Protein backbone atom coordinates (compact mmCIF):
# COMPACT_ATOMS: atom_id res chain seq x y z
CA UNK A 1 0.00 0.00 0.00
CA UNK A 2 1.25 3.47 -0.94
CA UNK A 3 -0.17 6.58 0.64
CA UNK A 4 0.81 10.21 0.06
CA UNK A 5 -0.70 12.82 2.39
CA UNK A 6 -0.22 16.47 1.38
CA UNK A 7 3.21 15.67 -0.03
CA UNK A 8 5.33 18.44 -1.48
CA UNK A 9 8.87 18.28 -2.80
CA UNK A 10 11.05 21.27 -3.51
CA UNK A 11 14.56 20.51 -4.75
CA UNK A 12 17.57 22.47 -3.49
CA UNK A 13 17.66 24.15 -6.92
CA UNK A 14 14.30 25.71 -6.02
CA UNK A 15 12.27 23.59 -8.43
CA UNK A 16 8.85 22.64 -7.05
CA UNK A 17 8.51 19.06 -8.20
CA UNK A 18 5.35 18.10 -6.30
CA UNK A 19 2.82 20.11 -4.36
CA UNK A 20 0.27 18.87 -1.95
CA UNK A 21 -0.14 15.47 -3.54
CA UNK A 22 -2.68 13.16 -1.95
CA UNK A 23 -2.69 9.65 -3.31
CA UNK A 24 -3.60 6.18 -2.15
CA UNK A 25 -2.76 2.97 -3.98
CA UNK A 26 -4.25 -0.05 -2.32
CA UNK A 27 -2.81 -3.54 -2.14
CA UNK A 28 -3.50 -5.39 -5.38
CA UNK A 29 -4.06 -2.25 -7.48
CA UNK A 30 -2.66 -1.79 -10.97
CA UNK A 31 -2.15 1.89 -11.71
CA UNK A 32 -0.66 3.71 -14.64
CA UNK A 33 1.08 7.00 -13.82
CA UNK A 34 1.11 9.27 -16.85
CA UNK A 35 2.05 12.84 -17.53
CA UNK A 36 4.43 14.99 -19.56
CA UNK A 37 8.17 15.15 -18.91
CA UNK A 38 8.99 17.17 -15.81
CA UNK A 39 5.49 16.69 -14.40
CA UNK A 40 6.80 14.98 -11.24
CA UNK A 41 6.47 11.28 -12.09
CA UNK A 42 10.11 10.48 -11.33
CA UNK A 43 9.93 12.46 -8.11
CA UNK A 44 6.97 10.32 -7.09
CA UNK A 45 9.01 7.15 -7.62
CA UNK A 46 12.06 8.57 -5.88
CA UNK A 47 9.88 9.30 -2.87
CA UNK A 48 8.49 5.77 -2.77
CA UNK A 49 12.03 4.32 -2.92
CA UNK A 50 13.19 6.87 -0.36
CA UNK A 51 15.82 8.12 -2.71
CA UNK A 52 14.69 11.60 -1.68
CA UNK A 53 12.65 12.91 1.25
CA UNK A 54 9.43 14.88 1.06
CA UNK A 55 9.80 18.56 1.91
CA UNK A 56 6.43 18.33 3.66
CA UNK A 57 3.66 15.79 4.09
CA UNK A 58 3.84 12.09 4.88
CA UNK A 59 4.64 9.10 2.70
CA UNK A 60 3.66 5.57 3.75
CA UNK A 61 4.87 2.57 1.73
CA UNK A 62 4.21 -1.09 2.56
CA UNK A 63 3.79 -0.28 6.23
CA UNK A 64 6.87 1.96 6.46
CA UNK A 65 6.47 5.60 7.40
CA UNK A 66 9.17 7.06 5.18
CA UNK A 67 9.32 10.30 7.14
CA UNK A 68 10.57 8.36 10.14
CA UNK A 69 12.56 5.68 8.33
CA UNK A 70 16.25 5.73 9.19
CA UNK A 71 18.83 5.52 6.41
CA UNK A 72 20.09 2.13 7.51
CA UNK A 73 16.57 0.74 7.34
CA UNK A 74 16.10 1.77 3.70
CA UNK A 75 17.27 -1.65 2.39
CA UNK A 76 14.40 -3.25 4.35
CA UNK A 77 11.89 -1.00 2.60
CA UNK A 78 13.39 -1.67 -0.81
CA UNK A 79 13.21 -5.42 -0.28
CA UNK A 80 9.42 -5.06 -0.28
CA UNK A 81 9.50 -3.31 -3.64
CA UNK A 82 10.50 -4.62 -7.04
CA UNK A 83 11.70 -2.01 -9.51
CA UNK A 84 11.83 -2.19 -13.28
CA UNK A 85 13.67 0.66 -15.00
CA UNK A 86 13.52 1.95 -18.54
CA UNK A 87 17.25 1.24 -18.97
CA UNK A 88 16.92 -2.25 -17.37
CA UNK A 89 19.81 -1.69 -14.92
CA UNK A 90 21.09 -5.23 -14.93
CA UNK A 91 24.53 -5.92 -13.50
CA UNK A 92 26.63 -6.44 -16.63
CA UNK A 93 29.13 -8.78 -15.00
CA UNK A 94 26.44 -11.22 -13.88
CA UNK A 95 24.51 -13.75 -15.92
CA UNK A 96 20.71 -13.68 -16.15
CA UNK A 97 20.54 -16.28 -13.37
CA UNK A 98 22.97 -14.36 -11.16
CA UNK A 99 21.16 -11.05 -11.70
CA UNK A 100 17.89 -12.56 -10.58
CA UNK A 101 19.44 -14.58 -7.75
CA UNK A 102 21.23 -11.50 -6.44
CA UNK A 103 18.01 -10.15 -4.92
CA UNK A 104 17.60 -13.35 -2.91
CA UNK A 105 21.27 -13.32 -1.88
CA UNK A 106 20.70 -9.84 -0.50
CA UNK A 107 17.96 -11.08 1.81
CA UNK A 108 20.11 -14.03 2.90
CA UNK A 109 17.68 -16.56 1.40
CA UNK A 110 18.64 -20.24 1.77
CA UNK A 111 20.66 -21.61 -1.14
CA UNK A 112 18.13 -24.37 -1.67
CA UNK A 113 15.32 -21.82 -2.08
CA UNK A 114 17.42 -19.72 -4.48
CA UNK A 115 18.10 -22.79 -6.59
CA UNK A 116 14.42 -23.58 -6.95
CA UNK A 117 12.93 -20.06 -7.05
CA UNK A 118 15.26 -18.41 -9.58
CA UNK A 119 14.80 -20.91 -12.45
CA UNK A 120 11.04 -20.80 -11.81
CA UNK A 121 10.87 -16.99 -12.08
CA UNK A 122 13.12 -16.98 -15.14
CA UNK A 123 10.77 -19.50 -16.74
CA UNK A 124 7.80 -17.22 -15.95
CA UNK A 125 9.31 -14.52 -18.16
CA UNK A 126 10.18 -17.12 -20.81
CA UNK A 127 13.96 -16.92 -20.59
CA UNK A 128 14.98 -20.33 -19.25
CA UNK A 129 17.14 -20.91 -22.31
CA UNK A 130 19.05 -17.66 -21.64
CA UNK A 131 19.76 -18.21 -17.94
CA UNK A 132 23.50 -18.40 -18.49
CA UNK A 133 23.67 -15.43 -20.87
CA UNK A 134 25.07 -12.05 -19.90
CA UNK A 135 22.89 -8.93 -20.29
CA UNK A 136 24.95 -7.71 -23.25
CA UNK A 137 24.02 -10.89 -25.12
CA UNK A 138 20.29 -10.16 -24.85
CA UNK A 139 17.90 -7.96 -26.81
CA UNK A 140 16.19 -4.99 -25.15
CA UNK A 141 12.97 -6.92 -24.66
CA UNK A 142 14.83 -9.85 -23.12
CA UNK A 143 16.76 -7.59 -20.80
CA UNK A 144 13.50 -6.02 -19.65
CA UNK A 145 12.07 -9.45 -18.96
CA UNK A 146 15.13 -10.26 -16.85
CA UNK A 147 14.56 -7.00 -14.98
CA UNK A 148 10.97 -8.07 -14.44
CA UNK A 149 12.07 -11.48 -13.15
CA UNK A 150 14.47 -9.74 -10.78
CA UNK A 151 11.68 -7.44 -9.59
CA UNK A 152 9.36 -10.28 -8.71
CA UNK A 153 11.74 -12.99 -7.53
CA UNK A 154 11.41 -12.14 -3.84
CA UNK A 155 7.66 -11.82 -4.12
CA UNK A 156 7.46 -8.09 -3.35
CA UNK A 157 4.30 -6.34 -2.20
CA UNK A 158 4.76 -3.62 -4.82
CA UNK A 159 6.37 -3.46 -8.24
CA UNK A 160 7.27 -0.08 -9.67
CA UNK A 161 7.83 -0.09 -13.41
CA UNK A 162 9.41 3.18 -14.51
CA UNK A 163 8.83 3.47 -18.27
CA UNK A 164 9.50 -0.25 -18.70
CA UNK A 165 8.59 -0.13 -22.37
CA UNK A 166 10.55 3.01 -23.22
CA UNK A 167 13.55 1.19 -24.68
CA UNK A 168 11.92 -1.74 -26.40
CA UNK A 169 9.92 -2.40 -29.58
CA UNK A 170 6.25 -1.36 -29.40
CA UNK A 171 5.20 -4.94 -30.08
CA UNK A 172 7.16 -6.15 -27.09
CA UNK A 173 5.68 -3.40 -24.90
CA UNK A 174 2.36 -5.23 -24.86
CA UNK A 175 4.13 -8.39 -23.84
CA UNK A 176 5.75 -6.64 -20.88
CA UNK A 177 2.47 -5.07 -19.72
CA UNK A 178 0.79 -8.46 -20.14
CA UNK A 179 3.41 -9.94 -17.83
CA UNK A 180 2.84 -7.15 -15.32
CA UNK A 181 -0.92 -7.71 -15.49
CA UNK A 182 -0.35 -11.41 -14.86
CA UNK A 183 1.78 -10.62 -11.80
CA UNK A 184 -0.91 -8.19 -10.58
CA UNK A 185 -3.52 -10.90 -10.83
CA UNK A 186 -1.51 -12.85 -8.27
CA UNK A 187 -1.98 -9.96 -5.82
CA UNK A 188 1.09 -7.80 -6.31
CA UNK A 189 0.46 -4.06 -6.49
CA UNK A 190 1.81 -2.54 -9.71
CA UNK A 191 2.61 1.09 -10.34
CA UNK A 192 3.63 1.68 -13.92
CA UNK A 193 4.93 5.01 -15.15
CA UNK A 194 4.59 5.45 -18.87
CA UNK A 195 4.44 7.93 -21.71
CA UNK A 196 2.71 5.55 -24.03
CA UNK A 197 -0.93 6.60 -24.14
CA UNK A 198 -1.81 3.91 -26.67
CA UNK A 199 -0.67 1.28 -24.25
CA UNK A 200 -2.67 2.80 -21.41
CA UNK A 201 -5.78 3.11 -23.56
CA UNK A 202 -5.38 -0.43 -24.72
CA UNK A 203 -5.07 -2.00 -21.28
CA UNK A 204 -7.13 0.48 -19.26
CA UNK A 205 -7.33 0.48 -15.46
CA UNK A 206 -6.52 3.14 -12.95
CA UNK A 207 -4.85 6.16 -14.54
CA UNK A 208 -3.09 8.76 -12.41
CA UNK A 209 -2.23 11.80 -14.46
CA UNK A 210 0.39 14.10 -12.97
CA UNK A 211 0.88 17.56 -14.35
CA UNK A 212 3.06 20.37 -13.02
CA UNK A 213 3.58 18.58 -9.73
CA UNK A 214 -0.09 17.93 -8.98
CA UNK A 215 -2.48 15.12 -9.71
CA UNK A 216 -4.54 16.30 -12.66
CA UNK A 217 -6.89 13.30 -12.55
CA UNK A 218 -7.05 9.88 -10.96
CA UNK A 219 -9.69 7.66 -12.59
CA UNK A 220 -10.46 4.18 -13.83
CA UNK A 221 -10.92 3.76 -17.56
CA UNK A 222 -11.87 0.69 -19.49
CA UNK A 223 -9.26 -0.78 -21.82
CA UNK A 224 -9.88 -1.24 -25.54
CA UNK A 225 -8.66 -4.82 -25.47
CA UNK A 226 -10.67 -5.75 -22.42
CA UNK A 227 -13.40 -8.15 -23.19
Amino acid at each position, binding site marked *: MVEFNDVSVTYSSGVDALHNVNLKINDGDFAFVVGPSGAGKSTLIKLI*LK*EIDATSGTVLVNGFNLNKLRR*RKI*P*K*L*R*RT*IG*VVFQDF*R*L*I*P*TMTVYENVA*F*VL*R*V*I*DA*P*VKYIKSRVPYVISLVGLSHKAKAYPTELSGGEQQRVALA*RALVNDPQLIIADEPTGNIDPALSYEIVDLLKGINECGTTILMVTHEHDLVRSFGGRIININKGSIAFDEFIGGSNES
Partner: protein
Amino acid sequence: MKASSVRYLTGQGLKSIWTNRMMSFASFCIILVSLLMVGLSVLFSINLNRIIGGIEGKSEVIVQIKDDVDKKDQAELRKKLEAIPNVNKVEFYSKEKAWKNMLKGMTEEEKSFFQYADDNPLPDTYRITVVDIKKMNETTTQIDTFDSVESTKSPTAFADVLVSIRRVVAMISGAIVLALIIVCMIIISNTTRASVFARRKEINIMKYVGANNRFIRIPFFIEGMVVGIFAAGVALLLTMFAYNGLYSILNEDFKIWNILGVKSLYSFKDIFWPVTIAYAIAGAFIGAVGTSISIGKHLKV
Protein backbone atom coordinates in the same frame (compact mmCIF):
# COMPACT_ATOMS: atom_id res chain seq x y z
CA MET B 1 25.18 -13.36 7.99
CA LYS B 2 24.99 -16.99 6.89
CA ALA B 3 28.08 -18.97 5.91
CA SER B 4 26.64 -19.36 2.41
CA SER B 5 26.42 -15.57 2.08
CA VAL B 6 30.01 -15.16 3.27
CA ARG B 7 31.10 -17.73 0.68
CA TYR B 8 29.06 -15.98 -2.00
CA LEU B 9 30.44 -12.53 -1.20
CA THR B 10 34.02 -13.83 -1.05
CA GLY B 11 33.49 -15.52 -4.40
CA GLN B 12 32.06 -12.31 -5.84
CA GLY B 13 35.09 -10.36 -4.60
CA LEU B 14 37.55 -12.81 -6.14
CA LYS B 15 35.57 -13.02 -9.37
CA SER B 16 35.46 -9.28 -9.81
CA ILE B 17 39.27 -9.07 -9.73
CA TRP B 18 39.17 -10.84 -13.08
CA THR B 19 36.03 -9.20 -14.46
CA ASN B 20 37.45 -5.77 -13.70
CA ARG B 21 40.99 -6.80 -14.52
CA MET B 22 42.15 -3.51 -16.01
CA MET B 23 41.20 -1.55 -12.92
CA SER B 24 42.53 -4.33 -10.68
CA PHE B 25 45.82 -4.16 -12.53
CA ALA B 26 45.94 -0.37 -12.10
CA SER B 27 45.32 -0.72 -8.35
CA PHE B 28 47.91 -3.50 -8.18
CA CYS B 29 50.57 -1.34 -9.86
CA ILE B 30 49.84 1.68 -7.68
CA ILE B 31 49.96 -0.34 -4.45
CA LEU B 32 53.12 -2.08 -5.63
CA VAL B 33 54.93 1.18 -6.41
CA SER B 34 53.72 2.72 -3.15
CA LEU B 35 54.92 -0.23 -1.07
CA LEU B 36 58.28 -0.20 -2.84
CA MET B 37 58.79 3.52 -2.32
CA VAL B 38 57.83 3.47 1.34
CA GLY B 39 59.46 0.09 2.04
CA LEU B 40 62.82 0.95 0.51
CA SER B 41 62.85 4.32 2.29
CA VAL B 42 62.18 2.63 5.61
CA LEU B 43 64.93 0.06 4.96
CA PHE B 44 67.36 2.83 4.03
CA SER B 45 66.43 4.68 7.20
CA ILE B 46 66.82 1.71 9.56
CA ASN B 47 70.20 0.85 8.04
CA LEU B 48 71.40 4.41 8.42
CA ASN B 49 70.25 4.26 12.01
CA ARG B 50 72.18 1.03 12.49
CA ILE B 51 75.35 2.58 11.09
CA ILE B 52 75.05 5.53 13.45
CA GLY B 53 74.27 3.11 16.27
CA GLY B 54 77.43 1.21 15.38
CA ILE B 55 79.51 4.38 15.59
CA GLU B 56 77.86 5.19 18.89
CA GLY B 57 78.76 1.73 20.15
CA LYS B 58 82.40 2.48 19.51
CA SER B 59 82.32 5.51 21.78
CA GLU B 60 83.93 4.55 25.07
CA VAL B 61 84.19 6.05 28.51
CA ILE B 62 87.68 5.50 29.93
CA VAL B 63 87.72 5.06 33.69
CA GLN B 64 91.18 5.58 35.23
CA ILE B 65 91.68 3.60 38.44
CA LYS B 66 93.62 5.08 41.35
CA ASP B 67 97.19 3.71 41.70
CA ASP B 68 96.70 2.44 45.23
CA VAL B 69 93.64 0.31 44.42
CA ASP B 70 94.33 -3.41 44.80
CA LYS B 71 92.92 -6.23 42.69
CA LYS B 72 90.07 -6.87 45.10
CA ASP B 73 88.89 -3.25 44.96
CA GLN B 74 89.31 -3.25 41.18
CA ALA B 75 86.96 -6.23 41.00
CA GLU B 76 84.59 -4.42 43.33
CA LEU B 77 84.67 -1.37 41.05
CA ARG B 78 83.96 -3.56 38.04
CA LYS B 79 80.87 -4.89 39.77
CA LYS B 80 79.71 -1.37 40.53
CA LEU B 81 80.28 -0.30 36.95
CA GLU B 82 78.40 -3.27 35.60
CA ALA B 83 75.50 -2.47 37.90
CA ILE B 84 74.92 0.89 36.23
CA PRO B 85 71.92 0.41 33.89
CA ASN B 86 73.39 2.49 31.07
CA VAL B 87 76.63 0.49 31.03
CA ASN B 88 76.75 -2.00 28.21
CA LYS B 89 80.23 -3.55 28.39
CA VAL B 90 83.13 -3.20 30.82
CA GLU B 91 86.59 -4.13 29.66
CA PHE B 92 89.78 -4.03 31.77
CA TYR B 93 92.83 -2.44 30.16
CA SER B 94 95.93 -2.96 32.24
CA LYS B 95 98.56 -0.28 32.61
CA GLU B 96 101.18 -2.68 31.20
CA LYS B 97 99.19 -3.18 28.04
CA ALA B 98 98.57 0.54 27.77
CA TRP B 99 102.29 1.24 28.21
CA LYS B 100 103.19 -1.31 25.53
CA ASN B 101 100.69 0.19 23.14
CA MET B 102 101.91 3.69 23.84
CA LEU B 103 105.50 2.71 23.13
CA LYS B 104 104.36 1.10 19.89
CA GLY B 105 103.05 4.42 18.62
CA MET B 106 106.32 6.30 19.39
CA THR B 107 109.34 7.07 17.25
CA GLU B 108 112.64 5.39 18.20
CA GLU B 109 113.82 8.66 19.70
CA GLU B 110 110.80 9.02 21.90
CA LYS B 111 111.00 5.37 22.86
CA SER B 112 114.63 5.71 23.98
CA PHE B 113 113.60 8.55 26.23
CA PHE B 114 111.05 6.45 28.04
CA GLN B 115 112.87 3.13 27.85
CA TYR B 116 114.72 3.64 31.06
CA ALA B 117 111.91 5.19 32.98
CA ASP B 118 111.64 3.50 36.36
CA ASP B 119 107.97 3.41 36.62
CA ASN B 120 104.98 2.97 34.29
CA PRO B 121 103.17 6.30 34.61
CA LEU B 122 99.95 5.02 33.08
CA PRO B 123 97.01 3.90 35.20
CA ASP B 124 94.92 0.75 34.95
CA THR B 125 91.66 1.56 33.21
CA TYR B 126 88.23 0.21 32.54
CA ARG B 127 86.83 0.91 29.08
CA ILE B 128 83.10 1.19 29.04
CA THR B 129 80.58 1.27 26.25
CA VAL B 130 77.17 2.66 27.06
CA VAL B 131 73.65 1.61 26.14
CA ASP B 132 72.27 5.06 25.49
CA ILE B 133 74.77 7.57 24.27
CA LYS B 134 72.44 10.43 25.22
CA LYS B 135 73.01 9.51 28.90
CA MET B 136 76.80 9.28 28.57
CA ASN B 137 77.33 12.50 30.50
CA GLU B 138 75.11 11.39 33.33
CA THR B 139 76.82 7.99 33.50
CA THR B 140 80.28 9.56 33.56
CA THR B 141 79.29 11.85 36.43
CA GLN B 142 78.05 8.85 38.40
CA ILE B 143 81.28 6.90 37.81
CA ASP B 144 83.31 9.90 38.99
CA THR B 145 81.76 9.54 42.43
CA PHE B 146 83.21 6.03 42.99
CA ASP B 147 86.15 5.94 45.46
CA SER B 148 88.50 3.85 43.37
CA VAL B 149 88.16 6.12 40.36
CA GLU B 150 90.91 8.61 39.66
CA SER B 151 89.21 10.26 36.73
CA THR B 152 87.05 9.57 33.68
CA LYS B 153 87.42 10.54 30.08
CA SER B 154 84.45 10.42 27.75
CA PRO B 155 83.86 11.74 24.24
CA THR B 156 80.79 13.68 25.35
CA ALA B 157 81.16 16.31 22.64
CA PHE B 158 81.33 13.55 20.00
CA ALA B 159 78.40 11.82 21.66
CA ASP B 160 76.40 15.03 21.41
CA VAL B 161 77.23 15.28 17.71
CA LEU B 162 76.14 11.67 17.16
CA VAL B 163 72.91 12.28 19.05
CA SER B 164 72.23 15.34 16.88
CA ILE B 165 73.03 13.42 13.70
CA ARG B 166 70.75 10.61 14.73
CA ARG B 167 67.96 13.09 15.51
CA VAL B 168 68.35 14.89 12.17
CA VAL B 169 68.51 11.60 10.27
CA ALA B 170 65.42 10.34 12.08
CA MET B 171 63.57 13.58 11.32
CA ILE B 172 64.56 13.69 7.65
CA SER B 173 63.90 10.00 7.01
CA GLY B 174 60.65 10.21 8.98
CA ALA B 175 59.55 13.22 6.94
CA ILE B 176 60.45 11.47 3.66
CA VAL B 177 58.57 8.32 4.66
CA LEU B 178 55.57 10.36 5.81
CA ALA B 179 55.56 12.41 2.60
CA LEU B 180 55.76 9.23 0.54
CA ILE B 181 52.92 7.68 2.53
CA ILE B 182 50.75 10.77 1.94
CA VAL B 183 51.57 10.88 -1.78
CA CYS B 184 50.89 7.17 -2.10
CA MET B 185 47.61 7.45 -0.22
CA ILE B 186 46.44 10.23 -2.54
CA ILE B 187 47.40 8.22 -5.62
CA ILE B 188 45.83 5.05 -4.23
CA SER B 189 42.63 6.81 -3.24
CA ASN B 190 42.34 8.31 -6.74
CA THR B 191 42.92 4.95 -8.37
CA THR B 192 40.42 3.13 -6.18
CA ARG B 193 37.97 5.99 -6.64
CA ALA B 194 38.31 5.65 -10.40
CA SER B 195 37.91 1.89 -10.10
CA VAL B 196 34.78 2.25 -7.98
CA PHE B 197 33.43 5.07 -10.16
CA ALA B 198 33.54 2.73 -13.13
CA ARG B 199 31.26 0.41 -11.15
CA ARG B 200 28.97 2.99 -9.59
CA LYS B 201 26.00 1.77 -11.67
CA GLU B 202 26.51 -1.72 -10.31
CA ILE B 203 26.51 -0.35 -6.74
CA ASN B 204 23.44 1.72 -7.56
CA ILE B 205 21.53 -1.33 -8.78
CA MET B 206 22.51 -3.25 -5.65
CA LYS B 207 21.10 -0.44 -3.53
CA TYR B 208 17.82 -0.46 -5.46
CA VAL B 209 17.27 -4.16 -4.89
CA GLY B 210 17.70 -3.67 -1.16
CA ALA B 211 21.34 -4.61 -0.54
CA ASN B 212 22.68 -3.06 2.63
CA ASN B 213 26.03 -1.29 2.67
CA ARG B 214 27.84 -4.21 4.26
CA PHE B 215 26.65 -6.57 1.54
CA ILE B 216 27.95 -4.21 -1.15
CA ARG B 217 31.19 -3.41 0.65
CA ILE B 218 32.39 -6.94 1.45
CA PRO B 219 33.19 -8.04 -2.15
CA PHE B 220 34.97 -4.74 -2.78
CA PHE B 221 36.84 -5.18 0.49
CA ILE B 222 37.94 -8.72 -0.42
CA GLU B 223 38.85 -7.69 -3.94
CA GLY B 224 40.97 -4.79 -2.67
CA MET B 225 42.59 -6.94 -0.03
CA VAL B 226 43.57 -9.70 -2.43
CA VAL B 227 44.94 -7.21 -4.98
CA GLY B 228 46.88 -5.55 -2.12
CA ILE B 229 48.34 -8.87 -0.95
CA PHE B 230 49.42 -9.75 -4.49
CA ALA B 231 51.08 -6.34 -4.79
CA ALA B 232 52.78 -6.96 -1.42
CA GLY B 233 54.11 -10.31 -2.65
CA VAL B 234 55.62 -8.79 -5.78
CA ALA B 235 56.93 -5.82 -3.77
CA LEU B 236 58.65 -8.27 -1.41
CA LEU B 237 60.38 -10.06 -4.30
CA LEU B 238 61.51 -6.81 -5.90
CA THR B 239 62.71 -5.44 -2.55
CA MET B 240 64.64 -8.65 -1.94
CA PHE B 241 66.40 -8.41 -5.31
CA ALA B 242 67.17 -4.71 -4.97
CA TYR B 243 68.27 -5.03 -1.36
CA ASN B 244 70.46 -8.06 -1.88
CA GLY B 245 72.06 -6.42 -4.91
CA LEU B 246 72.89 -3.27 -2.98
CA TYR B 247 73.92 -5.26 0.06
CA SER B 248 76.49 -7.26 -1.87
CA ILE B 249 77.92 -4.11 -3.44
CA LEU B 250 78.16 -2.17 -0.18
CA ASN B 251 78.92 -4.95 2.23
CA GLU B 252 81.06 -7.36 0.33
CA ASP B 253 82.63 -5.61 -2.64
CA PHE B 254 83.49 -2.35 -0.93
CA LYS B 255 84.05 -3.66 2.57
CA ILE B 256 83.06 -0.13 3.41
CA TRP B 257 81.68 -0.92 6.82
CA ASN B 258 84.87 -2.67 7.88
CA ILE B 259 86.77 0.47 7.00
CA LEU B 260 84.45 2.54 9.14
CA GLY B 261 84.72 -0.10 11.81
CA VAL B 262 81.02 -0.10 12.53
CA LYS B 263 78.25 -2.70 12.44
CA SER B 264 77.47 -3.89 8.95
CA LEU B 265 74.11 -3.44 7.25
CA TYR B 266 71.22 -5.76 8.04
CA SER B 267 71.21 -8.74 5.70
CA PHE B 268 67.85 -9.42 4.06
CA LYS B 269 67.69 -12.68 6.00
CA ASP B 270 67.64 -10.64 9.24
CA ILE B 271 64.70 -8.54 8.15
CA PHE B 272 62.79 -10.98 5.94
CA TRP B 273 59.90 -11.64 8.33
CA PRO B 274 59.35 -8.06 9.52
CA VAL B 275 59.41 -6.85 5.91
CA THR B 276 57.09 -9.65 4.76
CA ILE B 277 54.60 -9.01 7.53
CA ALA B 278 54.74 -5.23 7.09
CA TYR B 279 54.21 -5.51 3.33
CA ALA B 280 51.36 -8.01 3.69
CA ILE B 281 49.54 -5.95 6.29
CA ALA B 282 50.14 -2.66 4.48
CA GLY B 283 49.12 -4.13 1.11
CA ALA B 284 45.98 -5.75 2.44
CA PHE B 285 45.06 -2.69 4.47
CA ILE B 286 45.63 -0.21 1.65
CA GLY B 287 43.75 -2.36 -0.86
CA ALA B 288 40.81 -3.19 1.37
CA VAL B 289 40.31 0.06 3.21
CA GLY B 290 41.12 2.23 0.19
CA THR B 291 38.45 0.52 -1.86
CA SER B 292 35.78 0.37 0.79
CA ILE B 293 36.26 4.04 1.68
CA SER B 294 35.99 4.98 -1.98
CA ILE B 295 32.63 3.26 -2.38
CA GLY B 296 31.18 5.14 0.60
CA LYS B 297 29.99 8.07 -1.45
CA HIS B 298 28.25 5.81 -3.97
CA LEU B 299 26.32 4.07 -1.23
CA LYS B 300 24.21 7.11 -0.42
CA VAL B 301 21.42 6.27 -2.85
